């Protein structure tokens, strides 16, 4: 081992040796993980209930924390409000104020699994289970006042319809957004809270467009999907330009740079052949048009990639030649 290697190893050891994890730390971390998984499971179950009770009127479930009003009495705070004045948030929210034009499209929250879509005229959706187009966890309308986007939820997971919350946002540069969400009251509906960053999927930002999953892979690295469930989710085309969603229900969507679906229909997997059959409502394809990818393969190591060979493409969609990567995994 050379002297530089020895020194590097010594310095690494000095840092890792300082990473003390007590039994309590480990238990707390495990409990935190379990909480996150439990919330996700609850949202998935809630999604099923919402489908069954679609016509029901639900009472908003509010996370209430009492605080002192000016006259000293305790009362419920305006729930789902976002602090508007802390200087820390003002410093964080640099850039342009949001406008419908700047917001329009699909975004990815930098926590790795929440997607957001803003569609004309004033529709917004949040989702974290790969159903942004099919059945997003939260969907509603929005209004903008300054840097505050007020969202009124009208559908989605059980218990979420009827809620209203504010999201402060700024756009520091093209393709990027900073946001501040309430930290309480939405945990059963949204798996994102507090402040964070988003990057734009459609129209595709540079950071997403440059994500590369195929370089340095060989044919041997790609293997057939283990089952149909391995296809579920929202997939981004390598190089950008298209987002494909494959739902457990059997439906699929393909959206382009506009953020709007240009093709939709039903999908099926037979062996390693994935078939997308366009519906009559498809915007760019005729009802019954088929896109068939043969020899479908996936590459799973942190980031999940998927590709196939286009053996039939009666619609002629340019997305037929794309390699895809699973969006919740981007950056994961």
């Amino acid at each position, binding site marked *: 081992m050379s002297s530089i290697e020895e020194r590097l190893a010594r310095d690494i050891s000095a840092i890792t040796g300082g990473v003390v994890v007590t039994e309590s730390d480990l238990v707390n971390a495990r409990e935190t993980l379990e909480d996150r998984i439990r919330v996700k499971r609850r949202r998935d179950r809630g999604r099923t209930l919402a489908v069954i009770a679609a016509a029901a009127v639900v009472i908003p479930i509010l996370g209430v924390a009492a605080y002192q009003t000016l006259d000293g009495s305790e009362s419920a705070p305006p729930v789902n409000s976002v602090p508007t004045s802390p200087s820390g948030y003002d410093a964080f929210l640099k850039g342009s104020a949001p406008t419908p034009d700047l917001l329009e499209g699909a975004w990815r929250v930098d926590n*790795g699994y929440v997607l957001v879509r803003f569609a004309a005229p004033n529709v917004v959706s949040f989702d974290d289970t790969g159903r942004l187009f099919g059945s997003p966890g939260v969907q509603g309308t929005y209004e903008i006042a300054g840097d505050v986007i007020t969202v009124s939820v009208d559908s989605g997971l059980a218990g979420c319809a009827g809620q209203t919350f504010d999201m402060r946002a700024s756009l520091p540069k093209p393709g990027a957004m900073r946001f501040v969400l309430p930290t309480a009251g939405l945990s059963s509906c949204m798996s994102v809270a507090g402040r964070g960053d988003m990057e734009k999927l459609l129209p595709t930002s540079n950071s997403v467009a440059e994500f590369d999953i195929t370089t340095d892979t060989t044919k041997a690295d790609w293997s057939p999907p283990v089952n149909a469930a391995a296809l579920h989710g929202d997939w981004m085309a390598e190089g950008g330009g298209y987002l494909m969603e494959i739902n457990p229900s059997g439906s699929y969507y393909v959206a382009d740079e506009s953020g709007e679906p240009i093709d939709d229909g039903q999908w099926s997997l037979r062996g390693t052949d994935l078939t997308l059959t366009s519906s009559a409502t498809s915007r760019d394809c005729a009802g019954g048009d088929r896109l068939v990818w043969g020899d479908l393969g*996936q590459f799973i*190591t942190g980031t999940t990639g998927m590709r196939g060979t286009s053996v039939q493409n009666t619609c002629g969609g340019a997305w037929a030649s794309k390699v895809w990567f699973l969006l919740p995994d981007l950056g994961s």
Partner: protein
Amino acid sequence: MSTFWVFERLSGMTNSVPEEILSMGERGASRWRDAASEPAGAELVDALFRRHYVSLLRLGVVMLGSREAAEDAVQDAFVALHRHWQTLNGPEAAEAYLRSAVLNRCRSWVRRQVTQRAPRPLMLVREHEDGPEDSTVGREEAESLVAVMRTLARRQREVLACRYVLELSITETAQLLEISEGSVKAHTHRGLQALRKRIEVAQ
């Protein structure tokens, strides 16, 4: 209380099937698939957590210089694993998945910090607010080779982390980072050369 003792004690407390499966390596692949298809598959995630959390956290701290950021990266990796574990075909695949997921999240975090803080060089990168429990170290680490390592090109940084933090072989590093063994050697060499040069410039 040493980290090793804590880990040993926790491992010993779990005399369960999931731990047994993890210990079988490739031979456990078929039992993994059986266990993964059962509701008790969550126990496998639990066992993986106890087995790998500390080493992954250390990796994150070395890569990011922030314990808080490292904890977030490791938590995210396990949440992603829970989502995908039924598509993995064995404990070794799960371990590789976790390591790769942590590295990828470190990469995203660094990319975000660089975008926000350019053109300052990436040295000790801090979260928006320092907490009392944030173990980002101070001046001593600023002079450490690890701090310099964080300024290297991404691939060099990751290869050195695999080789000297995770202590993986060339072959294991190549598999984890999905590059050739030749590339591992090249990036290792170039990374160490770059470290040497930067120390010389600083002196």
